[in-house]
């Protein structure tokens, strides 16, 4: 029983980190109606960014975010204006291919810079833990979770309490109308993509501090992130949060009560079952009836 409680706690905490990684994906989807396959690779890029800062400048992981997040933001804006904005027709499908290509290039660059050796982020709090009952809880899980909550709250604030957020939501709902009231939708899209990518810098740090990674780690990651945002409902932030936590809890509990090899199977079967009942995901909206 204790094992199950432990598994639930770790599931919730790591779920927060996954929610952070998935929030960028779901945000970009919501505003631009594109699936950013490069999100997984960008998370790994973010993790390597923190790794480089830690190795060469001996920056604390969390302090390093002050450098990596703005830089990744700019990178996102650049990617958007170079490769995504030029897509005119059939953006939804073509963007999958374009962002996949970007993922390949990122992996290639990381391979050249860092080799394919596995690394993990180091900091005192990565291996230190506090004891709660007879369960040790690592600080990094706590910190990572807190970071996720703070950033998600900030994102929520940005979306629902600021002018930018209002224009962003307006662009999501009706592109032409947004243009007609003076919103520069292309600029909003670029900034949104930038924010989505900046979030991967933080998500990548938290991921890299709890998991060892190498440039090719992005493939497993992106399939999980996609599952999360579909599960939660495409474009829904709170849905992504619930789905991420749910996924990790389900997997962790399955792993301890049954076997790790069945953990993913159980999750995916559950995902399929839920999508049959609710094709729009947990908190997604059905596409409006035509007419």
């Amino acid at each position, binding site marked *: 029983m204790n094992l199950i409680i432990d598994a639930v706690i770790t599931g919730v905490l790591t779920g927060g980190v996954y929610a952070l990684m998935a929030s960028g994906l779901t945000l970009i989807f919501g505003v631009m109606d594109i699936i950013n396959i490069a999100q997984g690779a960008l998370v790994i890029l973010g993790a390597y960014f923190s790794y480089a800062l830690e190795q060469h400048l001996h920056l604390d992981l969390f302090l390093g975010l002050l450098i990596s997040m703005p830089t990744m933001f700019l990178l996102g804006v650049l990617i958007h204006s170079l*490769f995504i904005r030029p897509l005119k027709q059939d953006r939804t499908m073509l963007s999958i*291919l374009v962002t996949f290509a970007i993922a390949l290039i990122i992996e*290639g660059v*990381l391979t050249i*810079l860092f080799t394919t050796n596995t690394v993990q982020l180091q900091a005192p709090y990565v291996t230190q833990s506090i004891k709660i009952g007879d369960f040790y809880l690592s600080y990094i899980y706590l910190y990572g979770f807190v970071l996720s909550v703070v950033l998600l709250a900030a994102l929520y604030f940005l979306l629902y309490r600021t002018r930018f957020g209002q224009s962003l939501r307006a662009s999501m709902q009706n592109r032409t109308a947004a243009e007609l009231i003076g919103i520069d939708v292309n600029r909003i899209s670029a900034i949104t993509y930038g924010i989505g990518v900046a979030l991967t810098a933080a998500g990548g740090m938290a991921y890299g501090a709890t998991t060892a990674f190498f440039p090719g780690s992005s493939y497993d990651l992106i399939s999980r992130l996609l599952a999360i945002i579909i599960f939660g409902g495409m474009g829904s932030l709170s849905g992504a949060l619930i789905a991420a936590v749910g996924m990790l809890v389900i997997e962790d509990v399955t792993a301890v009560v049954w076997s790790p090899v*069945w953990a993913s*199977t159980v999750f995916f079967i559950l995902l399929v079952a839920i999508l049959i009942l609710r094709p729009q995901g947990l908190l997604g909206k059905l596409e409006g009836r035509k007419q």
Partner: protein
Amino acid sequence: MQHLRKVSPLVWLFAGIAFPFVISDPTYTTIAIFALLFAAAASAWNIFSGYTGYIALGHAAYFGIGGYALAIICQHWQIPGGYTPFYLVPLCGLLAAIASVPLGAIALRTRRHTFVVITIATFFILQLLSYNLRSLTNGSSGIDFPLILQWAPGFYNLPFYYVALLLTVLALGVSWFVRHSKFGLGLLAIRDDEDRALGLGVRTGSSKLIAFVISAFFVGMVGAVYSYFLGSVQPSFTFDALFDVAIALMVFMGGIGTLTGPILGSLVLESSQQYAALNFTQGSGGLYLIMYGSLFLVVILLLPQGIVPSAKALWARYQATHTASVLPDPSGSGGANPVARSAPGDGMGLATPREEAKA
């Protein structure tokens, strides 16, 4: 250029048959086998995804079922290496098709992105089962096919080549047949507006499922031949997520929803990928990834509709400028001039900006 158009399909068939005699080195026939198998799979995938517009990214599951089916049958009945396994390939395709009926029926209850993810999820479930159902699949160690000891090295590739060619021709034939049938027209109508098609009497549910099963059948057969050629099945290779991405890229590159685009895309992409791997790998492997990714970006950004529709559009533009005069648009609607027309006709033209603005 004009007379080339009249060249009949038979000439292409002949060229395909003659290829191993013209270029007989097994290295190139090896590449050709992979390219043809991908062409068959891409063409079959296009019958479903290209015509209906439902992008399935889980066909690797049927590839894997086909491969595992053949390996398990050969192991269980102790079938010796040689021609016999080829006769079992249709059976493997059938098994994949049977598996695709419930899986397709479940996935097809959803649309768009959700459909994409459900297909990915069914793929993962099957891959995980191939790891975990050890008594059937031998877990992560996989199953080896019987060795084919009796074929000389120079001959070895030929049976595989012709089987691959046969599968490609069959898949293309079925694709052609579907495209020109009432059934296929229904699929294209589904792609454009599914509910509307239903309201015009198209049995959308069964049409989608039949197309899905047809594509799974071919992909299953491809999986069987492919795995037999490689000599073993293993969960990570036989159920390979990259297979789906590769197929989708090939079809998009060639021109989704077109008849010949998928074939063209896969032959070009698979052979150039293998060529690149053979020739540009000294030094860092990262460079190879960067080149591969950049190539994609260039193709997608320059030819967003795929090679075949873009080539057609170019050809139409060429004709338009080189035939007597450009006739003014008789309808006055500004829509029917030859250049604008060629683009959305066959490929992924989708909405014109006017449409988008209205939508």
